[in-house]
């Protein structure tokens, strides 16, 4: 009997040590893993990682997270997925071994990683990729996203373009992002085939798209909707403007990627008029909350330089849009841990459906049992470039209510 008592006591001790937290003192440590393409898409990787780090610093600076009688501090662990699903799987295993309570990713490899994480009830947050099918509250209960969805962007682009009576050429590149977007765009325009001039897929790595642009021009297109990675958008703009075709070009958020402007830095006028759809950075409460976040971000990490200058010679900065999303997720996660009153992943995962926090832009961020999307379709706005910086358009009801965010030192 005594041996049995010892055995039970031993089992209890082992069970007590089987938490996701680490550290033997009264302050525990909760790991938030960040799996991003550091070497594949450095801007995206850096902004997501900085957003997570900024939020965890804020949480830790406020005393951490109190769960029962114990205090926890958040720690960030960075993994590089090289834009490779295989590497993302490997990183996920390492992150789980490290006891991560959540994984924030750009979206690379989520189709393969979510099941691995789900076995341990660990939530994954996608902070960049809006791919349809990546997030499904019913079939992928541990996958969440705070970033605009492709479906929402495609729907909003159709809603914006169709009333303009344009003949839109739907162009996509052959990357996974381009293919997924093409499907969403085709669906969004399916009810209005008269608005579509043609559909065309272009090679993602091709720098000279002159033949494809000629085909598009001959199709009678009066607008191009280009859904692809930044190099494809830059190549389309370059080819169109080279032949003097000043056709309006519309894109998803990749149009605002610094890469596009860097590629066209020698011809700033070619960027003028480029209109992209993305999640709005400011809420109805005004720009103050986002500007506060931007100020904190830039004072911690410095500005994200685009690498181009405007006509006045001022360097152009990129507002920390996607950093805001990854930062918001950390705050939602903290709210879930607090609501769960536990660091058990299963309880945290369940609580993520029941909490909401105020996001960095003043909007409410949260998930629910039916939707694991933190950015609703209505929050997609349109912005147009002029002189290497962008500002919201005036011919869309939502965008017209939004202020321009400063992108140069002159504001």
């Amino acid at each position, binding site marked *: *009997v005594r041996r049995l008592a010892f*055995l039970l006591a031993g089992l209890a001790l082992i069970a007590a040590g089987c938490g996701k937290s680490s550290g033997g003192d009264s302050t525990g440590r909760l790991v938030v893993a960040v799996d991003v393409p550091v070497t594949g898409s450095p801007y995206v990787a850096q902004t997501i990682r900085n957003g997570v780090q900024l939020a965890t610093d804020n949480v830790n600076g406020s005393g951490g997270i109190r769960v029962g009688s114990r205090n926890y501090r958040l720690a960030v662990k960075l993994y590089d997925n090289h834009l490779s699903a295989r590497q993302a799987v490997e990183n996920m295993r390492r992150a789980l071994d490290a006891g991560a309570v959540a994984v924030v990713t750009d979206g690379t490899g989520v189709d393969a990683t979510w099941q691995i994480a789900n076995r341990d009830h660990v939530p994954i947050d996608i902070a960049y990729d809006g791919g349809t099918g990546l997030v499904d509250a019913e079939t992928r209960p541990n996958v969440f996203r705070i970033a605009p969805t492709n479906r929402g962007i495609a729907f909003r682009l159709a809603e914006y373009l169709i009333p303009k009576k344009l003949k839109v050429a739907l162009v996509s590149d052959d990357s996974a992002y381009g293919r997924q977007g093409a499907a969403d765009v085709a669906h969004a325009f399916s009810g209005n085939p008269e608005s579509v001039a043609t559909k065309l897929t272009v090679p993602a790595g091709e720098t000279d798209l002159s033949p494809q642009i000629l085909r598009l021009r001959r199709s009678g297109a009066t607008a191009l909707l280009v859904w692809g990675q930044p190099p494809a958008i830059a190549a389309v703009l370059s080819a169109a403007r080279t032949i003097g075709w000043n056709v309006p070009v519309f894109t998803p958020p990749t149009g605002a990627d610094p890469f596009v402007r860097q590629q066209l830095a020698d011809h700033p006028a070619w960027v003028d008029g480029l209109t992209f759809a993305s999640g709005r950075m400011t809420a109805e409460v005004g720009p103050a909350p986002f500007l506060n976040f931007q100020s904190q971000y830039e004072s911690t990490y410095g500005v994200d330089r685009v690498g181009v200058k405007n006509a006045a010679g001022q360097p152009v900065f990129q507002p920390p849009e996607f950093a805001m999303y990854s930062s918001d997720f950390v705050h939602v996660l903290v709210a879930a841990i607090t609501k769960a009153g536990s660091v058990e992943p299963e309880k945290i995962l369940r609580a993520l459906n029941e909490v909401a926090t105020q996001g960095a832009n003043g909007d*409410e961020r949260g998930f*629910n*049992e039916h939707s694991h999307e933190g950015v609703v379709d209505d929050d997609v706005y349109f912005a147009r470039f002029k002189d290497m910086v962008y500002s919201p358009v005036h011919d869309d009801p*939502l965008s017209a209510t939004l202020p321009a965010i400063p992108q140069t030192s002159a504001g």
Partner: protein
Amino acid sequence: VSLRRGACLGGLAVTVTVTVTVFPAPVPASAAVEQVLLPGPTPYPTPSPPLAAVGVVPTRPLPFTIHARVAERVHAGVGPDGEIVSLRALHRLALTGKGDYLIVIGAPVVDVHAGPGSQSEPGLRIGQILWSGFSPGKKLLVADAELSAGAARFLPLRLHVTRAGGRYSLTVTNATVLSETSYEGKGFPRQLATLLDRTRAQSLAGERLDSAYASVEGRVRQRPARIAAPVAVQGVLRFPSVPTSVRGATLRGRSVSFSAVLGDAGPLSLRVDVRGGGTPRLRLVAEPTKLVRALAPPAASSWAAALRKRPIPSRVLLRTLIDTRMQLVRSDQYQAFLANPDPQGAAKTVYVYESAAAPTPKGSPSAESGSGNGDALVLTLALVGSVLGIGVALVIWAHS
């Protein structure tokens, strides 16, 4: 709802817990005259309807730039004895105005999906339907919500079915009846007649009551009152074969139809007796409605005209005025089974009762699912085996 009368009238200091508010006299001509606030448009006499969530739901007022109108259809599934076995609400929220919205509607909601025509998808949290987005000027949000059957106690009707031999009896009862404390006193007939005409006009036009005051002279006394929302009922019983006789309804072929307003100075229940025909399927549509009979002036086109013809005691006029306004408030209360997030917004609810089979509890294994039962058996055996195995191993180890 507890509202206080803060004045000392005729030596009687009264704290009245009623649906009416009596405010202190705002400088009356005579010291004994009070201006009393009559019932309506709010507060409602009970917290529900509109339904509330089980837990605490954060209050999310709509921004002042956005207004909401609610049109709602509540579907109650009726079991063989008249009990409610399922409850669903189709909640159409028409927003007007430009701006962001974040709407939290508290309700004992089991599941929710976008309904026909919805321009957005609703979210679900425990006890909450969520809407979030931007209204560009107009937006339609339609929630198709499955509600906990426990919310059936807030429906405006109770149904009871009895069967004996070849006889089928359906009793439909107005379930909005409430015992309330009202008050009485001596008013001014001409003013009360004018107020009655105004109340009647608003009732007949289907408008919400506006706030109104009446002057009362002398002592104000409490009195008990029973109020009920007037509910218009239209029903059909469809039998498999032609019934032999019907009482309390009209027989047309194999269908037996009935209609009535339960309340409004009329009976609060109706009964339909049918002989033969088999087991019918019921479809009944109920709507909280206006008062007609209870506000009809005696032998005149208006209360003012009736008063000119012959004197009517002011106590009768005041009692009629207060009671009818309480009934109209109760009727207005049932116009929103799920809440309208805009407190000033209009709401209209239609309640549909239909025969339904008892729902299968969610998650329970299907009777046809042989593999599911097999899995459960395997799992049970595995668990029992594991426990026995561990027990045997422990005993052996403890004796080693």
